[in-house]
């Protein structure tokens, strides 16, 4: 019995390793190709208004009084020829709205809002007297998706971008993320950028001054995890139009397509859900459209620093993943949806969603085998080795991939620390996140709700 289970875990992990290796190679080739390309030259011509599509930047805010100022400030100084910022105060119970009114000199305005998507009632609309392209919508609480939909209704430009209330955007991020859309004559309908962790960096008035690695082991591990997810996973998937996640923290969408797809839905992982729906719409209407991921443009976000916040976050994420997958279960293994139905969906279902269960079984088996001793010791060692390969080795590879291609960290010591921390992943961080994600599955099965909000302290000085 134990042997059978151990073999199952073993072969499962081997299969996943093969898949990851494939993604790693695709990403490496892709990233290395444009290594050392000038940071600025390719984007210079996009600053000309006549060529570039205007973007409405949506910032849903629910109790974000700590971070909202920095987020809006960072957005006010981005380099993009034409854009508007729409902050949606989703019935915050703290001083978010007051803070905005005070900091940006808001006054009420009248605006006809096209109800293309249904949302909770809007109480008032404000515009800033200081910045003519800054607007604030005050509405009744309806959740993040509802806030985003209200923002879409209000927005006046053909592209929308959603940004979390506590992230900081690099000044050229929009040029970079819009480039594939403009370059392709709008064949690309959604484009997502990398998200990195802001803890440890110096951020002043909404601008990243110096990139550095946090001192906290838990944060360092998350940095590695993000590298792994973004650099390895998404580039590989994007290359073959298999991308199912455009990060909620930073992604640009064609408004027309989002509205056709019905807007954001009230799920925990509304960003992934929307992307799945867009893919579905593309396939169902036989449209020749794409969703891409841009490795470089960076949005910096605050990562949880305590175990309990991280646990809440991971449980929520995993529940969100489940909801999106369940909602679109018709697409699983369905040849009608092409590679999305046959590769992406199964990948997210089997590897991303069930993976933690198998890993957890693996860890339990290791413990049982060690207790039983004798020939079982061999199982224990084998399973341990394969999970090292699955966890640590791939994370090390992701760190190296970063250093080999994008090189955001300028300090040698940061890279050294990243590498050695990634070595320890299998020993402590991985089992913890596996456990939390399994808790997320239990939550999903028990239909537990709630956000598990993390208390933010704001990334900016």
């Amino acid at each position, binding site marked *: 019995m134990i042997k059978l289970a151990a073999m199952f875990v073993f072969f499962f992990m081997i299969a996943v390793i093969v898949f990851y290796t494939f993604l790693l190679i695709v990403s490496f080739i892709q990233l290395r190709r444009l290594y*050392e390309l*000038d940071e600025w030259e390719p984007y210079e011509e996009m600053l000309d208004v006549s060529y570039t599509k205007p973007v409405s930047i949506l910032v849903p805010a629910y109790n974000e009084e700590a971070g909202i100022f920095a987020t809006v400030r960072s957005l006010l100084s981005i380099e993009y020829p034409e854009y508007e910022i729409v902050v949606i105060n989703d019935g915050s119970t703290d001083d978010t709205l007051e803070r905005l009114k005070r900091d940006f000199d808001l006054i009420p305005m009248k605006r006809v809002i096209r109800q293309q998507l249904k949302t909770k009632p809007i109480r008032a609309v404000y515009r800033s007297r200081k910045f003519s392209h800054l607007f604030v919508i005050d509405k009744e609480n309806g959740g993040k998706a509802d806030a985003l939909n209200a923002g879409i209704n209000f927005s006046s430009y053909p592209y929308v971008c959603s940004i979390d209330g506590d992230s900081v955007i690099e000044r050229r991020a929009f040029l970079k993320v819009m480039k594939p859309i403009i*370059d392709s004559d709008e064949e690309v309908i959604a484009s997502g950028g990398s998200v990195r962790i802001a803890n440890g960096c110096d951020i002043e008035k909404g601008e990243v001054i110096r990139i550095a690695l946090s001192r906290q082991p838990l944060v360092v591990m998350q940095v590695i995890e993000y590298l792994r997810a973004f650099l390895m996973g998404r580039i590989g998937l994007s290359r073959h139009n298999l991308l199912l996640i455009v990060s909620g923290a930073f992604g640009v969408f064609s408004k027309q397509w989002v509205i056709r797809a019905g807007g954001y839905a009230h799920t925990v992982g509304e960003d992934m859900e929307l992307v799945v729906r867009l893919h579905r719409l593309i396939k169902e209407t036989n449209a020749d459209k794409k969703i891409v991921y841009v490795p470089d443009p960076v949005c910096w976000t605050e990562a949880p620093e305590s175990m309990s916040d991280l646990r809440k976050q991971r449980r929520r994420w995993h529940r969100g993943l489940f909801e999106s997958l369940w909602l679109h279960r018709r697409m699983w293994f369905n040849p009608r949806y092409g590679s999305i139905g046959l590769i992406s969906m199964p990948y997210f279902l089997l590897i991303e969603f069930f993976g933690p269960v198998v890993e957890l079984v693996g860890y339990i088996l290791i413990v049982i085998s060690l207790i039983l001793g004798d020939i079982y010791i*061999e199982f224990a060692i084998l399973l341990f080795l394969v999970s090292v390969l699955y966890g640590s080795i791939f994370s090390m590879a992701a760190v*190296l991939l970063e250093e080999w291609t994008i090189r955001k960290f300028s300090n040698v010591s940061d890279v050294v620390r990243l590498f050695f921390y990634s070595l320890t992943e299998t020993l402590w961080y991985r089992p913890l996140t596996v456990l939390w994600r399994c808790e997320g599955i239990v939550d999903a099965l028990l239909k537990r709700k709630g956000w598990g909000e993390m208390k933010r302290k704001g990334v900016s000085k």
Partner: protein
Amino acid sequence: MSDSLVLFAWIVISLSLLLTAIFSYLVTQKVKENRWRKEVESYKSLYEPILLRYLFDGQHVPAPLVSAQYVAMIELLDHFILVLDNGVKERATLLAEQYLSTYLQKQLHHRRLGRRMNALFYIEDFQLTSFLPELEKRYDDKETTMMEKRQLLKMFALFRHPHVYEYMKHVDESFTQFDYRLILSRMDDHTFTKMIDYFFDWGEKMQYALIDMIGIMQKLPHVSFLLTLLRHEQSEYRIRALKALAEMAFPLEDDQLRIHLHSQVWQERLMALRLCARIRQHTLIDIIKQLMKDQVFSVRSQAAEALLRMPNGLAMLEQIAQTSDDPYARDMAIEWLERGREND
């Protein structure tokens, strides 16, 4: 079992070793690179006053000898070209011809695409037309990527290559309207006119790009061509032509505009309204008022903007806001009234 165990242990150990080796390599590279970058920066501060003296007074600049000096000089020069005005550009070109050509030539053949692209960008920025024969060779090279070809064509247009037109006829299918626009924006008037002369021989993407560029670049001599397009049966031509005319604020006859304002295609009504707004065609106010009740949101919004721009616009919107029988028209009027008052 124990066999596979040993095998696995080997795999994990050798992979770890391999990764550690790569890691050590990358770290040493990084140390080197950081040091090199510092060197470049220090050369930059050294060169800055020297280059400025050269650009303004023509004083002598010592030739760069090592790669860090080349890079420092290139980066500085590129920056100056961007921020300083035209007068200094010829001197910058001259200096680049003299000192940087060999370096850029080498970069043009670098095995890494990123480096080759950078070299192309610099050649374009420094206007090194002497590279044309070399660039031609690169374009015809089978190994050259699409990304480079796009950039090369832009440069051919900018450098007045005598055969740009022929090159354009054979470009890859994957070129987008945006690519075409960028190439057209650099093109001399003579070639541009030739492109327009053979308008209907081009593919759709190029045609749309051509119409758009007439508007964006305010090419007045081609207005008559746009006017012929207004009579074309295909609505996309009419819409784009109206958009280009609006861009140039070119006044149209009332009768002509009336046709478009009554079009079945809402985009055409929208663009006609945009043109009315730009040229303040007050003789058409009655139709514009009617369009405040249009079924399409953007048309109503554009109609309101057009009214606002007319002399007496605020009063007209005020009247619609208070007396219109159409609630949508009233809402839109209220919104634009506010916008209008803000700007007062």
